[in-house]
């Protein structure tokens, strides 16, 4: 009896101990650097190309690629930073979270990092503090625009539009033909970010004059209800009659599928999906945001997408900095541009891009005014933040009868509740 009881207790204790011992970390290689990222899509490229490249040149260093789903990245990373369990190298969002991390001293300043001279101050701005001290190595920028199916355009005798009037005429012609959806875009509320980054921020800069318009809103010199911003909202709203049926349920993948299957003639998208939308052999072209008057200079949005910084609580800061130095080299930029077509390096090096489609995206910048999206910096620091508010407003505007004027008024109202420069005096 006694033995039985003792053995029972023994089994209980063992069962408590075993799981905890399994959790204990195993022995590690000399130096392990973990990279925090939201680009789970790029895992194969990192694991099979970039990491072996670096590990081969730097024996004794082991790199672990640790992606988190994009929507959860900001919150998950913040928690890990707070709990001091975040990786050594952090993929930095432009503005937003990165500015918070800089403020809380969670990233180390990169002043004096060899290779940073390879970048312009402008391109480092989205990851720098107020006095332009860089905290992340700029790695990639993206852009938004329109893909079009060249076969459908040929069949209907259409050409890529340059002005808003031509754009509407093309959409009208496709609609009249009736065989194809004129313009595929994402309208489901879960993907409402798409209507902002690949909608308002795509067609808007022309109307609000790019960065000047962004600054005027940031400084409170202009209101969202002023004519240039309303015109931007109207340009987006002009798509409404040409979107897929039941637009409010079309999510991002649905829109892509419509275009890939040849059921939609035009797709509004980002340069980052070159591989999926325009694989070699697909007869696809690309055009940028239309202008109102023929001959006007187009505006092209260049969205700083990601950079890399060093976690301030990492025990391997020296090794991490060395890795970041490699991220500034031409070798890295060249590999990156070709491994991830549609992501464009931000360094000054002359990079050749093999992917023709990616090159076509880059060509959109020729002769255009290059501009950053508005609202990403200061107006994203409060509650409710600009990004959430504009996403929701645009989703409602595009899926219901809400007018561009009402949408602009809603945005202004939200800003006035908390954003100091826009607060009612």
């Amino acid at each position, binding site marked *: 009896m006694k033995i039985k009881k003792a053995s*029972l*207790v023994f089994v*209980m204790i063992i069962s408590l101990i075993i799981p905890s011992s399994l959790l204990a970390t195993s022995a590690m290689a000399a130096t392990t650097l973990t990279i925090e990222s939201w680009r789970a899509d790029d895992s194969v490229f990192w694991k099979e190309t970039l990491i072996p490249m670096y590990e081969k040149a730097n024996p004794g260093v082991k790199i672990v690629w640790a992606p988190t789903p994009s*929507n*959860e990245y*900001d*919150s*998950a990373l*913040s*928690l890990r930073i707070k709990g001091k369990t975040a990786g050594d190298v952090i993929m930095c969002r432009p503005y*937003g*979270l990165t500015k*918070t991390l800089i403020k809380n001293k969670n990233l180390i300043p990169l002043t004096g990092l060899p290779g940073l001279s390879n970048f312009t101050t402008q391109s480092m701005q989205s990851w720098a503090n107020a006095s332009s001290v860089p905290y992340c190595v700029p790695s990639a920028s993206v852009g938004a625009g329109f893909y079009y199916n060249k076969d459908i355009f040929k069949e209907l005798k259409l050409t890529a539009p340059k002005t808003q009037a031509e754009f509407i005429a093309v959409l009208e012609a496709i609609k009249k033909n009736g065989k194809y959806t004129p313009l595929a875009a994402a*309208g*489901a*509320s*879960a993907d*409402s*970010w798409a209507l902002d980054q690949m909608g308002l921020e795509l067609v808007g800069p022309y109307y609000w004059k790019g960065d000047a318009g962004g600054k005027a809103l940031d400084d409170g010199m202009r209101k969202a209800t002023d004519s240039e911003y309303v015109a931007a909202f109207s340009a987006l709203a002009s798509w409404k009659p040409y979107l*897929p*049926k*039941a*637009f*409010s*349920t*079309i999510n991002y993948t*649905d829109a892509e599928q*419509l275009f890939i299957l040849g059921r939609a003639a035009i797709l509004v998208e980002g340069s980052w999906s070159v591989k999926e939308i325009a694989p070699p052999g697909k007869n696809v072209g690309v055009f940028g945001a239309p202008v109102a008057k023929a001959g006007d200079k187009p505006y092209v949005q260049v969205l700083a997408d990601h950079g890399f910084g060093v976690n301030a609580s990492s025990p391997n800061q020296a090794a991490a900095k060395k890795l970041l130095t490699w991220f500034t080299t031409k070798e890295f930029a060249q590999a990156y541009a070709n491994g991830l077509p549609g992501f464009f390096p931000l360094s000054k090096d002359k990079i050749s891009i093999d992917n023709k489609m990616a090159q076509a995206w880059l060509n959109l910048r020729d002769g255009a005014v290059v501009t950053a999206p508005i609202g990403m910096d200061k107006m*994203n620091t409060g*509650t*409710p*933040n*600009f*990004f*959430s508010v504009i*996403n*929701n407003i645009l*989703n*409602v505007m595009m*899926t219901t009868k809400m007018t561009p004027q009402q949408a602009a008024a809603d945005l202004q109202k939200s800003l006035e*509740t908390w954003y100091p420069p826009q607060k009612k005096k």
Partner: protein
Amino acid sequence: MTRKRHRQLVLFTFPALAFFLIFAVFPLIGTIYISFFQENVFVGLKNFNFLFTDENASKRLFFAFLHNCEFFLIAASVQLPLALCMAALLTSGRVRRMTGFYRTLLFIPSTLSVVIVGFIWRLIISPLWGIVEYPLLGEKATALPTITLMSVWQYLGIPLVFLYSALLSIPSNIIEAARVDGASDFRIFFGIKIPLIAPQIGIITILTFIWTFNGFDIIYALNGGMPGPDYSTDVLGTLFYRTFFGWGADQGNQNLGAATATVIFFIILLGTAAYFATVQRRLKVSQL
């Protein structure tokens, strides 16, 4: 002997008790505790004050609560009668040897992952790929009822099994006696069976209440952390997630999130207590 038995009881309940204390009671108290802080500074009821008075936060909280009520009412009023009908049919003897087959079939969806259920239904009712022309998930008025019905479809098996076993446990001699007295099937069902399984119906209602007010998974799987269109499917669970963990560019606030969780806890606690005090006590098992 009794002392020894007592010790054995403690020994055998200890693992479960320890588990319960560590993973249920402790986090609950911890959550309430941190809801009184902000950035590690004690702020008293400030977080709750913000939740209930801030223009934006209180609006979201109120609508999330309203959506939860809608979620519960639809789930309870559809799921319970449906499960009862199915259970009655299964025990009626009309389906004969197929009982086991139907019972299994009806229970299978409950074993599926919510993500799969959400994905399948989203495709079935998609105007683009599916069989419904109307954008059910894209309209403010229909989005939440649609998601609720998906959930009802998935979990129909659970109340069904409850009611099925309750119906089976009714002694057959009572039914036979009633039949001898000339009672119709209809009369037997409403006059004898329903009163005998009333406590089970009560338990299922309260479980549905707890389950819907803790609801989060299917809405998150379908609509993410800012469930639209225009927050029309935002429930307390997703509101809590967004407040605590953040969503997109919105950064989470753990203390405010804990306060939201505490509010949800008290809503469920009060709802359950009120239900037990008023309804469940009166649902006595009929004396035979």
